[in-house]
């Protein structure tokens, strides 16, 4: 089942609606990577609130996804990891090193907003 991707300003929001197979996840990775280039997006939010399991494959794919998106010039924020899911991930030994994770969509948008302002300040100075 494909994941809907919304475009909002210079951000893309991928909002996962149901459990994903490996193929779905890989498709999402490729789709996001392609659209970041097409829309010249600066930030990507991946909302995983509905996911009740993040296993080794999903974690690894999220990491490579963030890395690909970074190489395409945008920042990735993962939002909505549930308490139980976070707990199981660390038990399993997974950490999502190098990927920004925040509480929910609202926080994700606020985070990207801060990044945008930092960029503007940097460009201005």
């Amino acid at each position: 089942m494909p994941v809907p991707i919304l475009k909002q300003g210079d951000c893309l929001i991928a909002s996962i609606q149901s459990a994903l197979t490996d193929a779905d996840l890989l498709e999402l990775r490729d789709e996001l990577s392609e659209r970041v280039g097409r829309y010249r997006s600066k930030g990507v939010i991946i909302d995983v609130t509905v996911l009740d399991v993040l296993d080794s494959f999903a974690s690894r794919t999220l990491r490579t996804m963030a890395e690909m998106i970074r190489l395409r010039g945008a920042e990735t924020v993962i939002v909505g990891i549930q308490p139980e899911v976070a707990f199981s991930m660390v038990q399993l030994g997974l950490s999502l090193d190098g990927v920004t994770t925040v509480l929910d969509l609202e926080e994700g948008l606020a985070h990207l907003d801060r990044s945008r302002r930092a960029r503007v300040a940097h460009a201005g100075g």
Partner: protein
Amino acid sequence: MAATRQRVHADDLADSIGLGSEELAMRKRFLEFDDDDVQRLEGMYGLTHEHVDAVIEAFYEHLLSFPETTSFFRDPRLLEHVKGRQKNYFIRLTQGDYDHDYVTDRLRLGSIHERIGLPVRSFLGMYAFYLRQIAALLVQEHPGDPEHAFQKFHSLTKLLFFDIGLGVDMYIHQRERTIAVQQDAIRELSTPVLTIRDRLLVLPIIGILDTSRAQQLTEELLRSIRESRAQVVILDVTGVPAVDSAVANHLLQTVEASRLMGAQVIVTGLSASVAQALVTLGVDLTKLNAVGDLQGGIEVANGIMRYQVVAIDDTIPEVVDAGPDPEAG
């Protein structure tokens, strides 16, 4: 029907403290308690039956001559009751069938003694008293045949040591159960997640941090992070007596899980000796944001959350909203 029910109950009590039939058989083998012993003990039934009243009376007279034990048997009705039980116990030693029912009976006795708080030394003293009494009786019964008397005494010693093992196991089992109940109680009491300010949580950890407690604590913290939308969490470990590599790993897992939910964790209260121990152990703590004490932790949290604490300056008059300035315009 009644026998069946009793049998089921016997299995319950013995099984509940890990005494299956295999374990019991092993214990008897270890004591070299065999059919000959059973026969000899059964042969002593007449002797115990004849002397039971005298032995038990002598025992309680002995017991009550010590102030420490007197206090347990102040109530005369209770005293009569326990005397009755002791008589049954004493005769039961020579009635054969040292099986599950026998074991349950012995376990129940140990359990009662533990519950009334009888010290283990008094419990053991009781067995020593019975051995002395029966030794004297056997010598009387077999004048000029000390070897025969000794054989019987030997069999009785084995059985009493079997009983002592069961009784002591019951003592230990009940104490362990008490400890487990208390630990659960402590566990429930000692995991408060405190909200210091909007979106800033403090989790003061007090006591030993084992795996199950660390997990419970982390679960609780993660739920609080979601509920209060926390940005920063301070884990204060001042009250954790020892931090070894296992505890350090638990802390790292808590930090990582909180980060996955979008909250930053600051660990405070790692003492100098703990810090030294962790470095010596080679635990990788590069991911741990550590600050000396709770106060310092709150200051760092303020920085992250862009708060500034300013003292109120009394020399500046309070701004009072007096409506539109009449002199303006």
